[in-house]
């Protein structure tokens, strides 16, 4: 069997700012994501989920620990190495509309990684239209600006952008939290389908335990920067070992 696509060891992030007490946002987190697997991370707001996601995607410098992607250490990757990393890992953000440049079209955003990979302008256009179609958006959305599309439509475009270069790992940081419940279900359905079709591993961050239940193979529960519980969704939801997890479940179900 292949090694894990993502391996995180003793990852820690401490935010220290002058005149303020240090904040340990992530404390000694260790976990793995196997190829094609979907790992959920749940936890209340402020528990450190986004900080984990940002360190994995190299948008934030870890304080300590190591991150391996596909066997290669990426903990301190910079420059061209970091740019190459984004051919393997992509991210969908919590704020769909704001994740697109307000002065550029959705098509520009979806096609940017293809353009950077050296694809010709005409080929990019064609591929963008195809990707939008895959994500359930008509081709005309390529020429729309983010403020001309709804949150759900922008999130579909954001997913099209994330799968454009066929990453091995997709990080979804509360990708559905900002959406209406019905739209939320559609987007989850889209993600589930893409995950099957593209055999993509997924790190699915969410504060809603109910969403994780159907979508994830395993879950981690985070509390104040620590991973306090782990297991299959059924295990975690049926027989939570920690008080905190029980509370989290009770608050939703």
């Amino acid at each position, binding site marked *: 069997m292949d090694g894990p696509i993502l391996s995180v060891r003793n990852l820690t992030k401490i935010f220290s700012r002058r005149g303020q007490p240090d904040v340990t946002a992530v404390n000694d987190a260790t976990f793995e994501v196997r190829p094609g697997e979907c790992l959920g991370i749940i936890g209340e707001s402020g528990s450190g989920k986004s900080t984990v996601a940002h360190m994995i995607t190299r948008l934030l410098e870890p304080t300590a620990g190591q991150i391996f992607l596909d066997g290669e250490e990426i903990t301190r990757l910079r420059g061209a190495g970091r740019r190459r990393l984004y051919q393997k890992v992509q991210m969908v953000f919590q704020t769909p509309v*704001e994740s697109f440049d307000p002065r550029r079209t959705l098509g520009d955003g979806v096609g940017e990684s293809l353009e*950077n990979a050296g694809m010709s302008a005409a080929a990019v256009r064609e591929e963008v239209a195809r990707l939008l179609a895959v994500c359930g958006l008509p081709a005309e959305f390529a020429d729309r600006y983010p*403020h001309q599309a709804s949150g759900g439509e922008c999130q579909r475009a954001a997913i099209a952008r994330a799968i454009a270069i066929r990453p091995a790992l997709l990080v979804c940081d509360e990708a559905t939290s900002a959406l209406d419940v019905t739209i939320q279900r559609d987007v989850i359905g889209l993600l589930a389908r893409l995950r099957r079709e593209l055999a993509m591993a997924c790190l699915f961050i969410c504060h809603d335990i109910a969403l994780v239940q159907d979508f994830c193979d395993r879950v981690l529960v985070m509390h104040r920067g620590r991973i306090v519980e782990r297991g299959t969704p059924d295990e975690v939801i049926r027989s939570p070992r920690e008080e905190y997890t029980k509370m989290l479940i009770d608050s939703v179900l």
Partner: protein
Amino acid sequence: MTTAAPAACRQENRADGGRARLWAFGALAVLLVLGAAFSESLCPFDPYAQNLSAALQPPSPEHFFGTDRYGRDLLSRVIAGSRASIFGTILLVTLIAALGTVVGVFAGWTGGRLDAVLMRLSDMFLAFPGLVFALAVAGVLGGGLHNAILALAAISWPKYARIARSQTLAVRESAFMKAARLSGSPEGKIIRKHLLPNIAGPILVTAMLDIGTMMMELAGLSFLGLGAKPPAAEWGSMMSESRGLMTTVPWSVYAPGLAIFVSVMVFNLLGDAVRDALDPKMRER
């Protein structure tokens, strides 16, 4: 429900009015700039030809603004002076906006110690009483329009550096910048394609509104003898030349004064219109 429709309507009207204002003042500004560009062929008389027998004539159909003490046609001198005043100002504003933006973006983007040093430096410049410092710089460099522009540029860029830096800091943290990073774009491309277009608005508006101020300061330096030198036609130095005649031959001061007033007004109103047009609340969806 009932209030929503009129509000939307008002919004639309304001947006329409804004667009009309933008076009009107834009056209006037373009007219001024074109006038300055073709000032030589627009002058009815040679602005430098002295004719002492026709000195100090009051405004008449032939000499619309009258003549000065050397008998030079004041209308021609005002038109000829527009080149130094308007182009000098535009050059100055372009210079400080560009320099300030480069410094501010650099400071905001790299952060850390360099940011701190650059911002302390601009604080120092901002703490000086501007025109006094410009006077000192112009005094050291010597007179002449070019040195006046350099002196004003030296004291005026920090305002733009501040704006560019704070905008850069705000935009840098936005989700779309993270997305741009994840698309594998190198930093230069991210700055060029995503950062600059998103911070350009406030800088452009500041620059437009600054044209009026800078035009006055440039004229002020010339008035004090530290800018354009006589006999060169420049509005500030023209006012200075005639200031002794203010009570007896008022038109010799009114002519350049009116030119400054009208130009400053046009560019200020254009700046307001540009600001309103770029205000996202006024933009149609």
